[in-house]
């Protein structure tokens, strides 16, 4: 039982007073790791600042130049949600590089579970644009590195917001399967069932939008019934989790009703998709209620590591169960239509 986490880097100067994406989130995440009492089974890898070569696999060079210049000229608001400070570019490069360092250690050990507690989060960052608190797409940088090594990467995104950046970056990439559960409607407005991937990667995006009030049983059923068969057919060699914890019922940023116990169950279920130990990494995304964040991270990591979790019970009974089968059928119809349209185009 080994948990590999990145060494903390100083993220304290990526902060704006009153903003919910704040350094205290990482304090809560690190406390959750302490709560596991792993002692010698905890491996801390040195922080790594992502290089330009590692970043341009997912971000365009012009964007990196603009972001760098913006930060080094003092920063400011990028949009109504997203800010940058003088140090944000340097800090974001550490956040993006952390996943790479953790993956390298897991490859060396062939054992354990990785956890990347870094900020700013990443899954909203597009190839050419910051948004939704995110500057660089941390999980995408890691997935792209694995892809370059010939791996097939499953990304499960259980943050309450759709990871539009990750979806966009891998939209037409058949070696990466993106699965997202999220509240809908909600920011960023993407993540419909009909978004199934690009022409060369049809079926490599699985969106499971859920109504406000949905509980853990609905989320788990969505993953099992809509994504399960696709994941089995894809047969991933690595599993990365965009682990946001803002679907927790105490989180102020959304309206799902999950508990820490639900995250424990989801972590157990997602761990099962990894082909062997040492091939699962969780990346911190959202989660803004510090107590819920701490307990949910603890729950997720403990079950991913095979420990017994005896905290908050899993939730059930919320709305959305009835729409899972409809969404599954709608998704299948969309894919059939896209295949038929491709066949027509290829007919002379």
């Amino acid at each position, binding site marked *: 039982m080994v948990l590999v986490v990145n060494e903390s880097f100083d993220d304290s100067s990526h902060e704006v007073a009153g903003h*919910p994406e704040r350094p205290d989130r990482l304090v809560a995440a690190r406390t959750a790791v302490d709560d596991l009492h792993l002692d010698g089974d905890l491996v801390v890898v040195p922080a790594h600042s992502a290089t330009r070569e590692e970043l341009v696999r997912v971000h365009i060079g012009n964007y990196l130049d603009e972001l760098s210049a913006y930060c080094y000229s003092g920063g400011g*608001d*990028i949009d*109504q949600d997203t800010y940058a400070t003088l140090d944000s570019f340097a800090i974001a490069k550490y956040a993006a590089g952390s996943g790479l360092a953790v993956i390298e250690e897991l490859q060396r050990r062939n054992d354990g579970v990785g956890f990347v507690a870094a900020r700013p989060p990443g899954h909203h960052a597009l190839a050419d644009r910051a948004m*939704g608190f995110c500057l660089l797409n941390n999980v995408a940088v890691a997935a792209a590195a694995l892809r370059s090594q010939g791996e097939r990467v499953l990304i499960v995104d259980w943050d309450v917001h759709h990871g539009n950046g990750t979806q966009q970056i891998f939209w037409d990439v058949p070696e990466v399967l993106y699965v997202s559960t999220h509240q809908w409607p909600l*920011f960023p*407005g*993407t993540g419909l069932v009909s978004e199934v991937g690009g022409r060369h990667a049809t079926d490599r995006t699985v969106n499971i939008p859920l109504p406000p009030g949905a509980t853990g049983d609905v989320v788990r059923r969505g993953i099992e019934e809509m994504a399960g068969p696709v994941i089995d057919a894809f047969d991933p060699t690595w599993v990365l989790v965009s682990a946001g914890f803002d679907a927790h019922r105490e989180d*102020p940023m959304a309206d799902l009703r999950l508990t820490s116990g639900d995250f424990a169950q989801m972590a157990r279920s997602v761990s099962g998709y990894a082909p062997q130990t040492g091939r699962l990494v969780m990346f911190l995304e959202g989660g803004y209620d510090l107590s819920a964040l701490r307990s949910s991270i603890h729950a997720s990591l403990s079950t991913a590591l095979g420990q017994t979790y005896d905290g908050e019970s899993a939730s059930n009974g919320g709305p959305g169960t009835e729409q899972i089968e409809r969404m599954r059928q709608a998704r299948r119809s969309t894919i059939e239509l896209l295949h038929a349209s491709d066949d027509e185009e290829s007919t002379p």
Partner: protein
Amino acid sequence: MKPFENIVVGYDGSHDAKVAARWAMEAARDCGAVVTIVHATGLREHLHQKYVLDVTPPELIELAQECAFELNGLHWLVANGDPCSVLLRMASPPTNADLLVVGSRGEGKREGLLLGSTSLEVAEHAPVPVVVVPSRYVER
């Protein structure tokens, strides 16, 4: 050229957004178009809702009256997303905007920077014409 029929304006309550809304209403008044004013609801607005779907901000109604623009041609929309993505979506069904209008700078933006400039991003990616209305615009 076919006159514009469906003009969409990005709105965040800032001075520049109001100037853009004024320009759009004046243009629509003269060419018989409808105007949809759209507010992009960001992540943080879940904490402090700034605008709601069913209530057109009173300042926009006042603006329409000042411009002699018929209120039945004014639509108000609140959509989830960042301003750039939301505006670009407006050019697709069901809204089908044929002209997008933005102010030159949104709330809290620094002057002269490319990053975070909704107007530049929209102008670069939109499939329909885009008008960027300068801060100091007044009707001639």
